[in-house]
């Protein structure tokens, strides 16, 4: 079977139609000197069967999380995804990344988005949520843009926020004239003292992560007070939202905008994407929020109906006033999150969060009891924590991989002075045996 769409006859018909005799003549305007001098070294085509054999052979070189004990988190979390989620996602009614262009005709899609928004509001303690963003890093950055005004264009961000999230913020900020100031952590927590020293009249918002990049739980009420006393907003970014199953919602701790990553709910890790950004805020920011919001109303016969209530400025009208280029979104990923959260329910999510907490704390005790391992911070943590090794973390990880263990993240990649530190993540999926095996291996090094 030939998969090339054009036959030689098709090509000559097309050339005839535009009045040139050959491909050579068609590209005649391109100087010979910059054209390839000889045919590209592409091997002859393979049959479907041969391709399948070749590619599945190559794919066997990959390791995947089904085969490994994963203790790596740092923004991507290995949580259980109920099997019905993928099955339902494949339904043709849902299987698109987009909200439809004629949205009201797709009541089911709109209802799913509405439910998603409701759940995000419940989890974050916010009044409004949009229909989703690209990922946690861009959602956090859009929150920062929402907070800025002409006379307030400074953002203070804790260095205990995910380093890659901070990079995305810096990238956007550069072209928007937003000044980003980074406040150092103290003992693994954003400290009011170091944040306060950076505040000026131009400070639009303080950004902290909850739980933070090191897994520690920030003192949101204290930081919120600092922000509000300085006429600035508190933006809280949540990269591991399973934590919200047991932690107080950021909105109840004084956050004004909550933005984060929803991958933990029903979305696979798969090389960093597609992920799911969520963005939620207090009511008064509704017109500064990018993206769209689905609302519930009644039709002319009084029946419940869903509509795109607010699509700020990105798409149809007044595009020149847009503050963001988000217009499509991660509707399918948001749907996966909605289905997962529906299946878990309030109680189930709490239980899942408790399992993460308990297993991580068991692992912490077990690992830090080893002579080869030292605890780094003493702050309360959720499902991630930092340990210091005696040996080079890269070498340790290599050895662990031979035992089918995916070790934690060596922090020297992002933080000076943390050369031997590793960020370890333990989710509900890890069994006691796996944790004990990790301890045994580390203890043997």
């Amino acid at each position: 079977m030939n998969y090339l769409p054009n036959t030689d006859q098709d090509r000559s018909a097309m050339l005839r139609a535009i009045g040139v005799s050959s491909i050579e003549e068609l590209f005649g305007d391109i100087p010979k000197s910059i054209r390839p001098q000889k045919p590209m070294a592409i091997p002859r085509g393979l049959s479907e069967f041969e391709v399948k054999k070749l590619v599945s052979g190559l794919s066997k070189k990959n390791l995947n999380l089904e085969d490994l004990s994963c203790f790596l988190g740092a923004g991507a979390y290995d949580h259980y995804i109920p099997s019905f989620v993928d099955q339902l996602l494949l339904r043709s009614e849902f299987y698109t990344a987009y909200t439809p262009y004629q949205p009201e005709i797709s009541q089911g899609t709109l209802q799913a988005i509405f439910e998603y928004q409701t759940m995000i509001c419940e989890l974050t303690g916010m009044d409004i949520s949009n229909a989703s963003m690209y990922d946690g890093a861009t959602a956090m950055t859009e929150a920062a843009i929402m907070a800025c005004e002409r006379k307030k264009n400074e953002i203070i961000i804790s260095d205990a926020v995910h380093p890659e999230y901070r990079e995305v913020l810096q990238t956007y900020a550069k072209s928007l004239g937003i000044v980003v100031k980074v406040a150092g952590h103290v003992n693994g927590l954003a400290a009011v003292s170091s944040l306060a020293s950076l505040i000026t009249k131009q400070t639009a918002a303080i950004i902290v992560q909850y739980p933070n990049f090191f897994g520690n739980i920030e003192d949101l009420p204290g930081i919120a007070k600092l922000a509000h006393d300085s006429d600035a907003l508190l933006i809280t970014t949540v990269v591991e939202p399973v934590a919200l199953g047991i932690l107080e919602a950021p909105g109840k701790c004084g956050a004004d905008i909550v933005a984060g990553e929803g991958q933990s709910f029903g979305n696979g890790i798969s090389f960093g994407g597609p992920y799911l950004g969520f963005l939620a805020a207090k009511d008064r920011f509704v017109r500064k929020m990018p993206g769209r919001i689905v609302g519930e109303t009644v039709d002319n016969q009084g029946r419940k109906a869903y509509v795109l209530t607010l699509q700020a400025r990105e798409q149809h009208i007044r595009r020149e006033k847009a503050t963001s280029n988000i217009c499509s979104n991660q509707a399918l990923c948001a749907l996966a999150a909605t289905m997962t959260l529906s299946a878990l329910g309030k109680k189930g999510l709490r239980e899942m969060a408790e399992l993460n907490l308990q297993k991580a704390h068991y692992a912490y005790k077990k690992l830090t009891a080893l002579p080869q391992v030292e605890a780094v911070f003493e702050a309360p943590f959720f499902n991630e924590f930092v340990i210091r090794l005696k040996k080079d973390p890269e070498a340790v990880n290599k050895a662990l991989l031979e035992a089918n263990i995916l070790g934690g993240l060596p922090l020297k990649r992002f933080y000076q002075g943390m050369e031997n530190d590793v960020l370890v993540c333990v989710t509900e999926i890890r069994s006691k045996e796996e944790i004990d095996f990790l301890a045994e291996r580390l203890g043997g090094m």
Partner: protein
Amino acid sequence: MIKSELKYSKDHEWVLVEGNKAKIGISDHAQDALGDVVFVELPEEGDEVTANESFGTVESVKAVSDVYSPVSGKVVEVNEALLDSPELINSDPYGEGWMIVVELDDASQLDGLMSAEEYEAFLKEEE
């Protein structure tokens, strides 16, 4: 309703001239055409506005519309009451519903505006 002491623009803004300052709002006709106003976006004090360019936004249940400045100059007052009570534009477009006060750069720009009678005729024509 058209108030005789005001000047009007083709974009349905009104101007009340007081010395070298101009108070600006939208006409009764404009608020009526927009319907219930639910949100108003205004410039900040100290901002410069330019004649025939947008200085703010009025969002009603029907549409989102730009509001154009009939004159150029510096914004010296902003009606912040509108941010919490945008409906003032509907209930009192020529009074409580004013939007901004501009210090005029060039008073001759006022010559291009319509008198109440001219505006009335302009509205009839538009129908």
